[in-house]
């Protein structure tokens, strides 16, 4: 299985994402922001970092990068896409996911390990997890406070599209939401970093519970 990792100027979690992909047994493919195609990958990870310096708003400029055209087509035809942290921000700016990520309520950059609960397991990125499974994942962000209007929040809950929920809310996110999916359940965005805990040498490989799911979820 080949999994692409997009790289924008200012992305800094791409190498961890490529490493995490290799750790879970797939072939990692770099997708440069100016690439006009996705090189035939089976899934895409949009990694964390500070793409375009977070200028204007986090993810606001990355969403117009050349690679996003093919990525949006891929997502709209059901391809598995995982946005991590800045990647989640990019996907909301690109309207591939609902809502927005606001500044953390307490106005501090949070760098911590937090407990989350996996809820929706009918996505390619959580298909290998047990419903209600608890994971401890690192977070590192200034704008991770998930926001959506009341109607959208109600719909996300009713349609069971909350993918990860904080057991200890680190940033003020509405409904303790740490990650959501789109209507097709193929595009997932999460603020915590599964790729940072993909190897026991990093202290934990719990992140592989999420990353390895795509092997199950994509039917490979």
């Amino acid at each position, binding site marked *: 299985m080949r999994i692409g990792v997009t790289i924008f100027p200012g992305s800094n979690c791409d190498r961890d994402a490529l490493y995490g992909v290799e750790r879970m047994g797939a072939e990692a493919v770099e997708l440069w922001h100016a690439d006009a195609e996705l090189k035939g990958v089976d899934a895409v990870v949009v990694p964390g970092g500070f793409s375009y310096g977070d200028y204007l708003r986090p993810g606001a*400029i990355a969403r117009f990068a050349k690679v996003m055209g093919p990525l949006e087509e891929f997502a709209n035809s059901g391809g598995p896409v995982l946005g991590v942290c800045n990647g989640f921000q990019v996907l909301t700016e690109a309207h591939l996911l609902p809502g927005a990520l606001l500044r953390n*309520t307490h106005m501090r950059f949070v760098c911590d390990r937090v407990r989350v609960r996996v809820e929706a397991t009918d996505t390619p990125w959580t298909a290998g997890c047990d419903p209600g499974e608890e994971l401890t994942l690192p977070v590192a962000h200034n704008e991770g406070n998930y926001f959506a209007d009341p109607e959208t929040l109600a719909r996300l809950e009713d349609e069971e599209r909350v993918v990860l929920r904080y057991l200890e809310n680190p940033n003020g996110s509405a409904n303790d939401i740490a990650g959501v999916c789109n209507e097709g359940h193929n595009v997932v965005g999460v603020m915590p970093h599964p790729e940072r805990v993909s190897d026991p040498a990093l202290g934990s490989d719990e992140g592989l519970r999420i990353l390895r799911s795509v092997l199950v979820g994509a039917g490979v």
Partner: protein
Amino acid sequence: MPDALKVRVLVRPKAGILDPQGEAVRSALPALGFEGVQTVHVGRLIEMEVESADEVDAMCQRLLSNPTIEEYEWEIVQ
């Protein structure tokens, strides 16, 4: 060649959305001795010189603001 138009765009958080930056500024002012500040909202100023104002709304909706969480207004400045 006509002079470029000077456009000033203001982007502000939508009413009712939590504005942590505004709240941080509001609570910092009394510590500096400034009283009586009831609300503060922090937004963004964008100044442009454009050939035509026809597409400024589209620019605001697609890039300069995030309509999910922000409102914008713009004017031509003399």
